């Protein structure tokens, strides 16, 4: 009797679980926790509500490296998700994994979805395209490094509440703030991303040969150029004088600025939400400072953040759902909402125009700084982005050497020479493994 009842219950449950018209499920693995995760789930829910054929199923897989590791393990076991969110430093690894990924331009073509790479911001497209201009992954959450100042601190020191434009002015302002008793004057997040990667693009100098590695696996690093050395030495000197407080390799500087501890910071545009929430600063967003003796500076900033990669080996039917979802994600109004909610930049020009037209930037001055920095000038080979293999390790090496310079253990020249030498060894290893 009991058994029969159970069987009946199972049958009923089964009937609910599998409706006559089966929905195609699309798995999306991501790394957006907290408020960002809610915004991401909001996107999936909106898409699922709009149509009935496909269902996006999101799963949070931890930090960026954790998601990527999980996906690699899943791929090795033939269980990979359809969509994987990969951080920008993993781009070269994904791109070289030819059998593991399905390029986005190809996916859209096969599914017959309209897709125009020119609709996206050029710096964003450039980062995720091959040399022929084919987009291999779909940009999703993109940010850039910005220069935050706390006007309260400036006023307290008797300075006009205006952000310094050049690094020379930054040093002069820092000295005045310090003299007025400000303990933490300037700090930075993501030392390699801000002071090597974005710094190079902003000054239109190469990070590596072969168009920053985009042109081939045989690239070498060039981050020990005189301009790089000068900049890092300047930061080391600032650190020695107590004008620059080192915070750590990732986003530790965000809290230092948001809590009102530091007067100036170069941190991600994505830190704005937290800054507003903390409510302890009279913040102002500015483009990054530059060295006015470098010709062509400022050029344009490069992005950070992540893009969506499509994994190979799934059914055509499922790929159609992925393509439809990507079209949905690129819609201006969807992008605008994402941009306003999260602080990430709108990835299409249309979304930027729409946000502008909505009057959002007039009501919230400074919220378009990131877009303005990314589109300051048409990107050059030096400022399109970068693509180096093993760059997770590569960044660690750069950061280790920067720390040695900031601590005064090495001069900037010795540290950057070491970073180039050690980095190049990694590049050669990647080249050999991906021939």
């Amino acid at each position, binding site marked *: 009797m009991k058994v029969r009842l159970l069987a009946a219950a199972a049958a009923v449950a089964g009937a609910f679980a599998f409706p006559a018209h089966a929905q195609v499920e699309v798995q999306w693995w991501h790394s957006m926790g907290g408020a960002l995760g809610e915004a991401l789930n909001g996107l999936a829910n909106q898409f699922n509500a709009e149509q009935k054929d496909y269902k996006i199923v999101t799963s949070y897989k931890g930090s960026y490296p954790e998601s990527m590791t999980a996906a690699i393990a899943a791929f090795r076991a033939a269980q990979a998700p359809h969509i994987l969110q990969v951080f920008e430093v993993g781009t070269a690894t994904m791109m070289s994994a030819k059998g593991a990924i399905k390029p986005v331009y190809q996916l859209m073509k096969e599914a017959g979805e309209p897709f125009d790479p020119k609709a996206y911001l050029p710096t964003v497209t450039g980062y995720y395209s091959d040399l022929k201009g084919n987009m291999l992954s779909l940009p999703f959450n993109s940010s850039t490094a910005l220069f935050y100042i706390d006007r309260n601190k400036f006023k307290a020191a008797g300075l006009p509440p205006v952000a310094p434009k050049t690094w020379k002015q930054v040093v002069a302002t820092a000295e005045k703030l310090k003299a007025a008793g400000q303990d933490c004057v300037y700090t930075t997040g993501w030392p390699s991303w801000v002071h090597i990667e974005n710094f190079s693009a902003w000054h239109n100098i190469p990070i590596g040969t072969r168009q920053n590695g985009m042109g081939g696996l045989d690239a070498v690093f060039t981050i020990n150029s005189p301009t790089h050395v000068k900049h890092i030495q300047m930061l080391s000197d600032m650190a020695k004088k107590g004008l620059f407080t080192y915070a750590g390799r990732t986003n*530790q500087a965000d809290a230092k600025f948001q809590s009102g501890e530091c007067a100036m910071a170069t941190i991600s545009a994505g830190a704005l939400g937290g800054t507003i929430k903390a409510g302890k600063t009279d913040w102002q967003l500015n483009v990054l400072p530059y060295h006015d003796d470098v010709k062509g500076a400022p050029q344009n900033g490069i992005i950070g953040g992540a893009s969506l990669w499509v994994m190979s080996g799934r059914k055509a039917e499922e790929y159609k759902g992925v393509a439809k979802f990507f079209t949905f994600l690129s819609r201006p109004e969807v992008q605008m909402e994402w941009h306003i909610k999260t602080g990430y930049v709108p990835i299409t020009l249309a979304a930027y125009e729409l946000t502008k037209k909505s009057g959002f930037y007039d009501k919230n001055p400074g919220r378009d700084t990131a877009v303005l920095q990314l589109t300051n000038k048409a990107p050059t080979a030096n400022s399109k982005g970068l693509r180096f293999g093993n760059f997770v390790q590569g960044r660690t090496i750069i950061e280790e050497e920067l720390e040695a310079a900031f601590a005064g253990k090495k001069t900037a020249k010795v540290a950057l020479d070491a970073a180039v030498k050690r980095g190049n060894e990694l590049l050669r290893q990647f080249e050999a493994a991906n021939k």
Partner: protein
Amino acid sequence: MEKRVVFRSAWLPFVLVAPQLAITVVFFFWPASQAVWYSFQLQDAFGLRSQFVGLQNFYTLFKDSNYLLSFRTTAVFSVAVAGIGIALSLLLAVMADRVVRGAMAYKTLLIWPYAVAAAVAGVLYAFMFAPSIGIVTFMLRQFGVHWDWVINGNQAMLLVIMAAVWNQISYNFLFFLAGLQSIPKSLIEAAAIDGAGPARRFWSIIFPLLSPTAFFLLVVNVVYAFFGTFGIIDAITQGGPAQSTTILVYKVYHDGVKAADIGGSSAQSVILMAIVIALTVVQFRYIERRVQY
């Protein structure tokens, strides 16, 4: 006379040890052999292309002066963690053993930290010692100490050693306390009647009788310092600043899990495995001789 159990059937003993053997094979021999196999290969992250490169991964490692540096870091770290951890917990155990009133409370409090996971311990220390906002940093500033381990390598090393020792002290304490309590009181009383002071009693009677426990803890603590402390490092310093806290096991994790460099990471774990096997052999062959069971 030695007692011997005789099995009548030939296969029963094998069946009885089979579960244990299976666990050892599945969780130790199989992954270890995989690591050895991968250490001879150059592979892309997804395992799409792999080629046999012989000893090249090892060659690359030993050519890298930074990898060699991490041996020194590991040596400093392990000696400090095992040494301080054992000495401090022995002291605490001897003290706790002497206490008559409230002994239970002291013991409970001393055992407590063991319930804290390594990563949580790491985060706790990172908060307490956080540059500029940590409570300990604040107190140090009153004494004129400039505490900033985010950029000062020696301070970072000191911090991870403290956190690692703190996390392990309870375990050591527990074993020492058990060891102390199993020493017959009559021996100590006899020595006291003979006129031996507390220090003399400790070094001539208590310490030799504790030596099996101390030896066991030495082995366990060295293994802990080499492998178990990785959570603390990851939670506090991630190997930085520069490379001042990159111990061998942390580099294995970083290269293998975070950077998906399977070959290089496997080669490192093979080297690490060899070191720990060698250390354990040395401990058992040379130090154990001086242990009095």
